[in-house]
């Protein structure tokens, strides 16, 4: 859990972050959303003390971050950034093991952890552990970057536009992986982005930021349906609002049980936007739905999407 209490950061006269308060409950995926210069990265970087707040206080897991040495604090908090920053002279294994090594883990435990993380990111351990960063694609580098952030099993993970520099297809895959990893590991994540679609897809809570303050803090659906201010409604965009609404709802919200339809079933957690896309492509208004085990459990119809 992260509690930010009335934090201010000034650069000269300008308040980059202005008396900002935010509580991120344990296990939440909180996205700080805003255009560049709104203070979202500064806020993130104050959590692991890369930037010192001028006033206010921040607590991580109930402990004031100024009460522990900065290095000890950072080793407890995962950190992944847009430029990735893999150490080019170290192998994938050494990169991932950075923090566990700082924490003086046993060699065998360290190796097992690297294997476990590479598997979590679907990178074949024996192929990848000995590679150098320049031998990886951009998407693989970012996977290793996030794996490195998760290596010492931190309670909190901070991510600063981690997927902004990769191509759209890779970004899509990385977002899906991050969503899965969040479900599987239940970390508290604070994620900075300017990409509304990314925020809608990943967040449990979105904090829309503007001029150093939070304009609205709410789950994705509420941000879309009830924007708290003109700024928020402009930022999330009135255009394509319907599609954005579909993208935050899942089949499980709307499906009919006890019916059946022909064709390949879609999983329960498919977004309604993706469902609409599949319907259009298959020229049908009814699709079967399956659960995680692949068993058909019901049907989703075009009419359900606009209900």
């Amino acid at each position, binding site marked *: 859990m992260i509690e930010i209490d009335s934090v201010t950061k000034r650069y000269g006269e300008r308040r980059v972050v202005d008396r900002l308060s935010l509580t991120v409950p344990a296990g939440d995926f909180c996205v700080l959303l805003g255009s560049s210069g709104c203070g979202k990265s500064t806020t993130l970087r104050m959590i692991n003390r890369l930037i010192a707040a001028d006033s206010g206080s921040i607590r991580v897991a109930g402990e004031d971050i100024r009460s522990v040495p900065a290095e000890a604090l950072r080793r407890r908090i995962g950190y992944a*950034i847009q430029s990735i*920053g*893999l150490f080019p002279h170290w192998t994938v294994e050494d990169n991932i093991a950075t923090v566990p090594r700082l924490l003086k883990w046993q060699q065998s435990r360290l190796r097992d952890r690297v294997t476990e993380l590479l598997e979590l990111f679907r990178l074949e351990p024996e192929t990848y552990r000995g590679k150098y960063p320049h031998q990886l694609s951009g998407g693989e*580098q970012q996977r290793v970057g996030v794996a490195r952030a998760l290596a010492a099993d931190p309670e909190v993970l901070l991510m600063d536009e981690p997927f902004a520099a990769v191509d759209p297809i890779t970004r899509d895959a990385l977002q899906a992986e991050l969503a899965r990893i969040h479900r599987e590991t239940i970390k508290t994540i604070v994620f900075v982005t300017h990409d509304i679609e990314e925020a809608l897809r990943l967040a449990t809570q979105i904090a829309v930021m503007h001029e150093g303050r939070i304009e609205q803090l709410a789950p994705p659906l509420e941000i879309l349906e009830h924007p708290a201010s003109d700024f928020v409604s402009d930022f999330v965009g009135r255009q394509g609002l319907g599609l954005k609404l579909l993208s935050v709802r899942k089949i499980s919200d709307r499906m009919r049980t006890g019916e059946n339809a022909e064709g390949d079933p879609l999983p329960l957690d498919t977004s309604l936007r993706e469902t609409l896309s599949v319907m259009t492509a298959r020229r049908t208004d009814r699709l079967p739905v399956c659960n995680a085990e692949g068993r058909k459990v019901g049907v989703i119809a075009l009419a359900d999407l606009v209900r």
Partner: protein
Amino acid sequence: MRGSSVLASPLLWVSLFFAVLLLRMDELRPVLHWAFPGVEPVIYQRSSFFALFLSHLGLVAAASVAAILAGVSLAAFVTRPAGRDFRAMVNVVATVGQTFPPAAVLAIAVPIVGFGPRPTIIALFLYGLLPIIENTIAGLEGVPRGVREAAEGLGLSPWQQLRDVDLPLAAPVMLSGIRVSVTIAIGTATIGSTVGALTLGTPIFNGLVGNKLPFVLEGAVLVALFAIVTDMLFARLERWLRWEAKQVISGTDR
């Protein structure tokens, strides 16, 4: 394949030539007699060339090790947040050290530390500092920003950032500076002979004073070969380091 590349390398042949001249200069006696009739002795005799070489090597090594330690430490210091304010000053001091003629340093140092190897080491140290400082700063500043931010954000202490990330990544550029510094020091060390240090410059000055041209030639050729061999060794080390570093820098600098 590997064997033939070693045989084809100029480094091997130049080193061999240098070693043979150093140990068997006597064999050239007939040639020198023919070239410089009437000069006796025609080969410098007061000490062996090998002994002069060892003393020369010792002076250069002492000064260069000191210059590397001081230069790298200063460069590391002024590129840390705490030392940033001193950067301009360190640059000025190093530049003055380089522009101040080594002969003048000797003239000032001798009254203070006396004759012998010590004033020479001081002059070489000051003279060699600038290229090391400059290149180390350039190398450290060339470390990609994202890499530095990741190192700090993951919880490496400032010392760990320097030792494990910044210095290894700066190494190829640093090495270029060390190469320049050491090569210049080998040539410059000869003037130490004017204040009582034993170097391969000793026969040169002896020959100049006693009007014995062969001595000058013998010393000069050996010093030149010494510098060339050293430079080639560094070139090889540099190529190896850059090769290691090449796989390294590309692909992460985004």
